[in-house]
């Protein structure tokens, strides 16, 4: 039987995925499951989605040949410039799709979780665009360390609610958003920011982000005369930019899939977010996937210098890619990522988000052939990380 890496009709990628949710969420998730593919296929939806991606987000994002970086690593490196999107990262591709979905489902209240604040900003942005009420859950600790994004979310008219439970970071913000949804089952749509959560979220988010690999194909054809690179590389927290970057290459084994997770202070330092190396199969936020946990099944707290990769699980698609060996998984430490980020600044004049810097650190771990075409997803820009860069490099 031909192996496939797409979701099956029951909402699983191999053994990963599903919808492990309390009964209180069933009507909402089921409504979405029954309608999402139908709505996404409607010509009026496609038309509105594509128009907004073009005129509002600024797509297509460029596929840029990084000449000096290529010279340094003696291979052909292209950067997929998601950092040039409106709001500064790939996150907006998904929130545009989901706000249109929410409108068609008749919802008039939006909730979202956010860690570093990028998804919170992207959600508040599309809610302002659509004129819909927006509540963003954010861990109390993240609110303190991401002040500029908290201000952005407020300026965009959304309400920021601190998550006070547990470790007061992304996973707890996600818990709080889910609890809000349980308490508001009729009028509310939950815009999840990554390729995680109960089915159909991982698939829906992946499909909205798949514009990234769709564009890579035709852009590469123009530049290299072929649609398929030898490798696609992306950083993975929950894994939405990676899912979008891989999507149209999943079933083409000629294209190597490379994932870079955040090793934090080192995989075995006790302060890491390298889920594939440290995780075990379990249930987090409604799906079966790899997650970091104690032997007793309590979810543990991850660490990374990058708030966007600081998540104890990974999307079910990526667990499947890891388990089947379809994806090559690496991890980059804080130091490797910061160094790679600064290198991109100085070789190409691009300040990357620290998340994306993890993908750039692949060259520390793998050597490519001179004629390999390597496409790296530059998922976000580094403006939001300036304080981190200042502190790290003592600028």
């Amino acid at each position, binding site marked *: 039987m031909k192996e496939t890496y797409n979701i099956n009709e029951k909402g699983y990628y191999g053994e990963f995925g599903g919808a492990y949710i309390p009964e*209180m969420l069933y009507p909402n998730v089921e409504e979405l499951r029954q309608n999402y593919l139908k709505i996404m296929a409607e010509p009026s939806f496609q038309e509105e989605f594509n128009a907004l991606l073009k005129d509002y987000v600024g797509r297509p994002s460029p596929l840029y040949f990084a000449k000096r970086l290529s010279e340094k690593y003696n291979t052909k490196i292209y950067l997929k410039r998601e950092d040039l999107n409106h709001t500064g990262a790939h996150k907006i591709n998904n929130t545009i799709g989901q706000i249109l979905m929410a409108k068609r489902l008749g919802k008039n209240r939006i909730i979202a979780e956010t860690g570093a604040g990028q998804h919170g900003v992207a959600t508040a942005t599309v809610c302002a665009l659509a004129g819909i009420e927006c509540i963003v859950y954010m861990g109390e600790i993240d609110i303190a360390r991401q002040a500029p994004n908290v201000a952005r979310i407020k300026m965009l008219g959304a309400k920021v609610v601190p998550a006070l439970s*547990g470790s007061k970071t992304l996973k707890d913000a996600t818990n709080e958003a889910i609890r809000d949804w349980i308490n508001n089952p009729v009028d509310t749509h939950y815009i999840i920011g990554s390729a995680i959560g109960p089915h159909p979220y991982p698939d829906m988010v992946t499909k909205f982000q798949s514009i990234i690999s769709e564009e890579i194909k035709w852009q590469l054809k123009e530049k290299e005369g072929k649609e398929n690179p030898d490798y696609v590389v992306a950083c993975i927290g929950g894994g939405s930019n990676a899912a979008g970057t891989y999507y149209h290459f999943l079933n083409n084994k000629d294209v190597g899939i490379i994932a870079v997770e955040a090793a934090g202070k080192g995989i075995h330092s006790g302060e890491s977010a390298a889920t594939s190396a440290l995780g075990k199969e*379990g249930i987090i936020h409604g799906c079966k996937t790899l997650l970091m946990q104690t032997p007793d099944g309590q979810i543990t707290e991850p660490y990374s210098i990058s708030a966007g990769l600081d998540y104890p699980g990974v999307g079910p698609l990526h667990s499947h890619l890891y388990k089947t060996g379809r994806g090559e998984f690496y991890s980059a430490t804080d130091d490797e990522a910061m160094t790679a980020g600064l290198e991109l600044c100085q070789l190409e004049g691009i300040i990357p988000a620290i998340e994306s810097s993890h993908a750039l650190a692949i060259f520390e771990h793998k050597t490519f052939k001179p004629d390999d075409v390597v496409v790296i997803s530059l998922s976000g820009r580094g403006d939001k990380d300036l304080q981190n860069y200042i502190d790290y490099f003592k600028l």
Partner: protein
Amino acid sequence: MNRINQKLQEDKKLLSIYFTAGYPNIDNTSTIIQNLEKSGVDMIEIGLPFSDPLADGPTIQASSTQALKNGMTSQVLFKQIKDIRKSVSIPLIIMGYFNPMLQYGVEAFCKKCQEVGIDGLIIPDLPVDVYHSEYKSIFEKYGIINVFLITPQTSDERIHYIDSVSDGFIYMVSSASTTGAKVGFGDEQSEYFERIANMNLKNPQIIGFGISNNETFTQATKHAKGAIIGSAFVKHVTNNGIDTINTFVNTIL
């Protein structure tokens, strides 16, 4: 016959109480169970604490966090229950999230439940269809009753499906909410309680969420076989400790 089914046959309205195992102290489990039984409670739900309890409000979250800090685990709880089972006959149900059970091994967990004298499980994030296709035979092998939730938003069709898969009672969540979020019932609840009562389900229903005193207990049990109190009891334990449990129960019955 399973102790839960025996209890459900009694001609009375049942009071079930939830407490978080390992809270306020790690070794309180046996005292709490004994005091609840002595106070006339009919059934006990023992909360197995989880780091990320999605369906719970702040009260039970806080007690779970403290219980985990105190060192509560599946293994510790099983050992405590094995000891206390010798001296109590009340039906005991473990309420917990699916991941700790998955890590223990679902079959090993059910086997251990049978061994130590647990009668049933309530697992909010194990959906009925997954249970039905993957785990039902394991639960049955060890005589463990699995209890499912329904809410005001659950369709009649799904309620009938849940009823057909259940073999004990159905846990009726009184309103769309997390635990401890709302107190008391309005017209919407009364209509919902009546609607379910009129469906003539094969499993009796026990109502939970929003029950904290005699008034709400009486309202809930007008149509249902019993009622469950969770957050209000955990609050009582937080404020008054575990020696005055009978005072709390007396305010309900």
